[in-house]
């Protein structure tokens, strides 16, 4: 499938899928930290790699990122990032203990990884229910660095087959706990056909 010539109606359908998926993820996160979580309407964009991080809006920010690879009927990548400080806050919320160490401990890293895994799991459950397609996802891989370095390192699957990425991005935030995270879903172009077919937007 040619990403550059995607029908706008199909993009809308994808947006709706993203919306429902991330809605599910937000509910899961809300239960996890026991606070109200709000989300933005997903932004969908088809972009050349060079413009991807600009569109993501946090190029040189120090972030904690969790990456998961989806395989099966749908293939693609999921990345969940939060600023390093916010990752520390999320960890202390989950572990119910405050740490004064500015560096994330192994335990705290695990907590952030776990939270991201739960988020992704609920996103993908929704995706699977909507499309009746089955797929699996990898264990979460964790890394803290400059946002762009993390993003650049997960794009290679997409890079091998094309020059564009389809990006579905949402911001999840929790006002009371001052948490914001960015959720990125980068489906591989060839799995889009199947996805559209199963939700019935394909002619």
């Amino acid at each position, binding site marked *: 499938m040619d990403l550059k010539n995607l029908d706008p109606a199909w993009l809308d359908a994808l947006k709706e899928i993203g919306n429902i998926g991330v809605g599910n993820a937000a509910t899961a996160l809300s239960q996890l930290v026991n606070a109200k979580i709000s989300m933005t309407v997903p932004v969908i964009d088809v972009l*050349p*790699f*060079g*413009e*991807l*991080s*600009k569109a993501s809006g946090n*190029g*040189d920010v*120090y972030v904690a990122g969790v*990456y998961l690879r989806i395989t099966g009927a749908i293939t693609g990548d999921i990345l969940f990032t939060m600023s390093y400080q916010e990752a520390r806050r999320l960890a202390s919320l989950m572990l119910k203990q405050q740490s004064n160490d500015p560096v994330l401990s192994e335990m705290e890293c695990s907590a952030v990884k776990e939270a991201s895994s739960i988020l992704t799991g609920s996103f993908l459950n929704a995706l699977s229910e909507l499309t009746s397609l089955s797929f699996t996802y*990898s264990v979460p*891989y*964790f*890394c*803290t*660095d*400059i*946002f*762009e*370095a*993390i*993003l*650049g*390192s*997960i*794009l*290679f699957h997409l*890079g*091998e*087959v*094309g*020059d564009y990425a389809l990006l579905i991005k949402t911001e999840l935030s929790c006002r009371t706990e001052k948490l914001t995270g960015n959720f990125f879903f980068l489906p591989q172009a060839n799995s889009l056909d199947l996805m559209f077919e199963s939700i019935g937007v394909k002619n």
Partner: protein
Amino acid sequence: MTNGNLVITVGIAELRVDTSPTNLSVIGLGSCIGVCLYDPVTKTGGIAHVMLPELINARGNVNRAKFGDTAVEALLEEILTAGANESGIIAKIAGGAHMFHIPEERNFMKLGERNAVSVKRALKKCNIPLVAEDTGGQYGRTIILNTTSGCVLIKTINYGEKII
């Protein structure tokens, strides 16, 4: 280091060439490689932001800046067009880190390393001397090439700064 001059950012799978006084920069190189070519006489410099090692793995692709082997050739052509003398061009490379530790994906593990190997092979093929490099490790790098001095400033989050 940037001397208040304009900083031009080179995105993933892009390449840019410019003459003094400018700064060419790549924000956050992970497993990608920033290939810097520089001619000290004409003060012309260029950076290619390489994402993958080889073109042969890809299907019907034309963006030469994306792959190590083709990016070096493309960058050399650009910098010569911009007026650099072929005999004086030097190369500096940075990046090629191993960001995520993924035991089951062996290729992924070595992506940064494979990128570095491919770029070095291409430089050799084009007879461009590699005068400095800062590759490997498990951390991202931001690089800034100053086209006046030819110096490359490398910034990291937890591993300090250095100039190569």
